[in-house]
């Protein structure tokens, strides 16, 4: 089990009902944890994860097979003005 800090921004925070949380997880990869988060918070979060961006320890995730780090940021697309 590893402890990971999750930070949710903008619409992701709305979907999660929180800005941040710490989770104990068996997930080994970024993708596995993202799937758990999407299942937990429902379709709005699933869409954000699909359309937005994940940063693992400050580095954008291009390969969801990347091993999980200490922190994962969930960002919706930054649009509107």
């Amino acid at each position: 089990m590893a402890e990971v800090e999750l930070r949710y921004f903008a619409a992701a925070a709305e979907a999660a009902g929180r800005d941040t949380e710490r989770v104990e997880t068996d997930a080994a990869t970024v993708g596995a944890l993202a799937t758990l988060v999407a299942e937990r918070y429902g379709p709005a979060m699933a869409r954000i994860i699909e359309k937005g961006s994940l940063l693992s320890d400050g580095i954008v995730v291009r390969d969801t097979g990347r091993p999980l780090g200490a922190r994962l940021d969930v960002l919706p697309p930054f649009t509107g003005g």
Partner: protein
Amino acid sequence: MDLATSPRYARQRILPGFGTEGQRRLADARVVVIGAGGLGSAVLPALAAAGVGTLVVVDPDVVDETNLHRQTLHGPGDVGRAKVESAAERLAEIAPELRVVQVALVFDARSAAEIVAGADVLVDASDNAAARFAADDAATAAGIPLVWGSALRFSGQAGVVWGAHGVDYRDLFPEPTDDPDTCEVAGVLPTVCTTIGGLMATEVLKLLTGVGTPLVGSVIDVDALTGAMRRLDFARDPDRDTSGPPTRPAAPQAAPQAATPAPDADAGIEPDELAAVLRSDTPPLLLDVREPWEVEAAALPGATVIPLGELPARIAELDPGLPTVVYCHHGVRSARALDLLRQAGFADARHLRGGIDSWSRAVDPSVPRY
């Protein structure tokens, strides 16, 4: 009349590190702002009033009545007019000397190079991902920083990316995606635009004057519902392949030199390397380009002090044949000083990466950080 010394700017000119030189840099600057909507309505008047010399305003849209609650550049009488036209009128009232270039075009890969040519800073205050990624490519091709912002519902974000300094927008979002959320369907609190636009204008002023540390590689996230601001830092994936096209357009031909050019990769020296060469038998000349009040706050022993604003007039006091290391607070002004030194024929000149602040952190904690 020299506007740089006008009382109009007195309250910003007295700020540490700003001065008449900072004001002149604003007057000489050309800033391209994509979007004369909600964010543009905060960014453009702020830059005009602060004394930026040329603003290129890019927006293909006409004013719609639903824009007016947040797009305060435009009034009810402007509904149906081109946004660039109504924006230019309002900006001329704020700053009659300002040159406004109206570009009623979509900012995309085709139009980008010509619009961005000669700009010092690119600002993306648009509302869509297509413009954001086109702006990212154009800024990288031109070697200039991109200040970006977004606002939707009750929250917004702002930040700076600068490919020449190692991070672009694709290090935050790898690809544009079609997000169905727009202000039209999701709404936006007007003052989120004001807040984010204010952050964006601040970054432009910092980049142009060299004051402070720009938000390169960072995002400020604002949640209006709680009043909380959070900062997110990001970096380039060391494994990212940036070698090829497909997305980089050609650099604009004969683009004038940016006011804040990126130093070449080998022009920087790390604090620990500098400490080593200072201990060697042939130490370089240390040149401090900060303001006198900063030198009082913290300094490196033996440094020659010439504030950046005085350097062009006083460069003859220095010997171009000597190895020289220039430093400032965070490494922004020193990069500019380095350009001046190189133009003046200094063959062996480098600048301290991260400035005296990085020296305090990496080499000598007894040097105060300020």
